């Protein structure tokens, strides 16, 4: 496990920090300045500009160069970044005070105009930024004075602060964008602790310390992000010392690596839930008894132990625990693995054993068609097959069709979906329940509008998630989401399987690094090398 680390200087954590410093885990080591940290990961960024890239390969890099107004620490608390404070003026307007004296890497001063420029570019540009789709009701920014800016939303939008703390909302230098044009997306200019040096396509991206950083300056001289697509080759690079840090390491090697003092396995429960989804709009899965029967029929512990081998934790609901508004659905208590119970529920729903061992009702066999991709999420294919076999044990047939992701995705995206089950994963990018509960379970969010792939419809849930979205009172929102999850737990339209762990392996010489629950937030501002 990761050693507990606490960001100093955060008020809430100060008390805990004090105890950590005197704990027997050892006094804080003297930090060393200098050196190059080499990171290997499987793919090259699409771009280094959030305008064009919101996926991890780009985010890992630009997160260290472009800073948002706010940021989310490892405990998922909102912390100031480029903004020093905020004031909610109205349900559609939040006023931010900007940090004075901050300069972009090109010398341009950070001011309210730069914030407005960044948001206009993303939200009003054509085409709109990739991250605009993640930003909910965010509509723009208004300059109040040089260091004061009002951020506006189209409608009351409770998740606004978490949205502005998202990894992809970093403020960009207006002069650099104007000067570089399209070239900006390959050499971004922000305010972060590292600045851009070089990007050789499919080879590496190099960053170096920003000597004029407004906060604690980075300890590393340079960071090199190398592309090593092959998992085995990445692990060998770590062993030979060609790499100091591996992103997306080979799960099978983790037990051995964590026993070896030459390496440190950093891990934390992440934000992605991988699940077997059920299509609640069509028979037989429109019957809640059948759906819950499938939950009883699946031995999730066996899947976790035998297939995922410690590289994930059991899902505790439809959200990850790091998400604001998460409520533990207590799935193991509500739906323990119990085949007799599953069979009883199916019998209650009128399904009786047929001649071939598959249940049937009115001459109709209980056969479910299932769409899945392989390799999109860790072990998704294996999990699908395992559940298929477990369902067979209670007389339910699953016909799985494995297709390549682009094809699967197109079917999900279309208005008509001709399968009863599917395998998917979902990450709550802004760590606010709104992001998932609204888009995944609101009845109006059926694709192509949203991502309610289960075609779930419950007027009460609609009301709750709408209300929670519009409320600015976070305690109230948390309560509303709690009720939403209570309802969802009773009417399950997913078989939640696992919650990803974010795992990063480093050589033991890498210090001051903490893996963040949000997979995109790879922060190297405090990392240093002891060699």
């Amino acid at each position: 496990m990761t050693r507990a680390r606490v960001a100093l200087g955060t008020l809430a954590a100060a008390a805990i920090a004090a105890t950590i410093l005197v704990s027997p885990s050892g006094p804080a080591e003297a930090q060393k300045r200098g050196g190059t940290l080499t990171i290997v990961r499987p793919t090259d960024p699409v771009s280094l500009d959030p305008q064009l890239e919101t996926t991890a390969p780009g985010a890992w890099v630009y997160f260290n160069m472009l800073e948002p107004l706010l940021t989310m620490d490892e405990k998922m608390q909102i912390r100031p970044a480029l903004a020093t404070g905020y004031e909610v003026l109205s349900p559609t307007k939040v006023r931010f005070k900007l940090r004075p004296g901050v300069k972009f890497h090109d010398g341009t001063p950070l001011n309210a105009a730069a914030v407005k420029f960044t948001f206009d570019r993303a939200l009003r540009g054509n085409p709109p930024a990739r991250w605009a789709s993640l930003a909910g009701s965010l509509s723009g920014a208004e300059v109040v004075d040089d260091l004061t800016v009002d951020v506006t939303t189209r409608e009351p939008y409770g998740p606004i602060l978490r949205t502005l703390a998202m990894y992809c909302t970093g403020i960009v230098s207006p002069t650099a964008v104007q000067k570089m044009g399209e070239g900006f997306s390959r050499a971004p200019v922000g305010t972060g602790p590292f600045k851009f040096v070089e990007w050789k396509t499919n080879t590496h991206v190099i960053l170096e310390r920003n000597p004029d950083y407004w906060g604690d300056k980075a300890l590393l001289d340079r960071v090199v992000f190398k592309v090593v697509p092959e998992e085995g080759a990445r692990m060998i690079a770590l062993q030979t010392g060609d790499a100091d840090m591996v992103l997306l390491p080979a799960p099978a090697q983790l037990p051995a690596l964590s026993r070896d003092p030459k390496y440190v396995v950093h891990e934390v429960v992440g934000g992605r839930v991988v699940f077997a989804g059920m299509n609640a709009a069509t028979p037989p899965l429109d019957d809640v008894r059948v759906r819950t029967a499938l939950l009883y029929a699946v031995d999730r512990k066996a899947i976790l132990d035998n297939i995922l081998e410690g590289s994930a934790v059991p899902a505790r609901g439809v959200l990850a625990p790091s998400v604001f508004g998460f409520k533990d659905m207590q799935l193991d208590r509500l739906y323990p693995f119990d085949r007799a119970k599953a069979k009883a529920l199916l019998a209650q729903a009128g399904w009786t054993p047929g001649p071939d061992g598959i249940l049937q009702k009115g001459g109709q066999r209980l056969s479910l068609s299932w769409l899945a991709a392989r390799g999109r999420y860790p072990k998704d294919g294996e999990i699908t097959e395992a559940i298929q076999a477990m369902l067979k044990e209670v007389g339910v047939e699953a016909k799985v069709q494995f297709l390549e992701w682009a094809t699967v995705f197109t079917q999900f995206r279309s208005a008509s979906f001709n399968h009863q089950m599917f395998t998917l994963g979902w990450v709550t990018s802004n760590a606010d329940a709104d992001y998932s509960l609204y888009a995944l379970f609101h009845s109006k969010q059926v694709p192509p509008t949203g991502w309610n792939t289960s075609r779930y419809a419950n007027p009460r849930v609609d009301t709750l998630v709408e209300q929670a979205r519009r409320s600015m009172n976070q305690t109230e929102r948390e309560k509303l989401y709690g009720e939403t999850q209570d309802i969802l737990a009773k009417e399950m339209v997913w078989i939640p399987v696992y919650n990803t762990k974010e795992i990063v392996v480093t050589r033991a010489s890498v210090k001051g690094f903490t893996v963040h629950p949000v997979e995109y937030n790879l922060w190297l501002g405090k990392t240093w090398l002891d060699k």
Partner: protein
Amino acid sequence: MLTFIARRLLLAVPVLLGVIFVVMLTVQLIPGDAVALMLGEHATPEAVARLRDYLGLDKPLLVRYVGYVGRVARGDLGRSIQQNRPVVDELADAWPATLELTCAALVISALAGVAAGVVSAVWPNSLFDGVARVGSLFGLSMPVFWTGLVLIVVFALWLPWLPVGGMGSLPHLVLPAVTLALPSLAMVARMTRSSVLEVLREDYVRTARAKGVAERLVVAKHALRNAAIPILTLLGLQAGQLMGGAVLTETVFSWPGLGRLMVKAIFARDYVLLQGAVLVFALAFVLINLAVDIAYGVLDPRIAHHG
């Protein structure tokens, strides 16, 4: 000769037009939409529609085809959909890497393959011949990603002589080039062995030996030159194969070549980038074939090229 080259190059135009059309049609027919994929699960339908409109993807296939061909004729390969970057720049990043790796692999398979084949033919059924034949079988049947990883483990991990991957200095080139060359090397060795063996049985070789020509010269001049035509044909084919088939080698050795670029384009359904990459391959194939045809004439004056 010049008219011959000019005519062959002109003939390449319809080939390239056809290639573009097939690529465009294939991307159109296979499921998956570049824009929806790019914007992901979270995209609103309006965002998808706006981006599709911006990229001109809502136009009919033929309109896009004609437009694309017109732009290519003016030297504009368009902008990649996903990166929004000129395709020319993307290709320029990857092309030198592919050229370097292909040439190195071709040189290795030609030199080592021909040498091994000749030795096997001169001393058939010797110990060397036996080892070479088993080795060829091995080289042909082992998958590249397996040999690649084994080579990395041996030469980068156990014996830290060579880098694990990446492109840069000459040592970086060794492992990927050898890995990529192995199957072709095996094929060239087998082909050389059989054609040299055949030629060595010819009357003129017996005559040459009878009049006292040194065995070295007999093999090098009389036998090998006459056996060269099929070997050359094979090398021409292999050159294309090595270039297009390097994606696994590129993946194992983190080599920033065209193969990986193309696979990336396919998964993203980025047809603009894909077309650019395919055009480069098609053009290279045409040029390699032309070079092989010209070399035939040089090696064997009986094969003349008439304009």
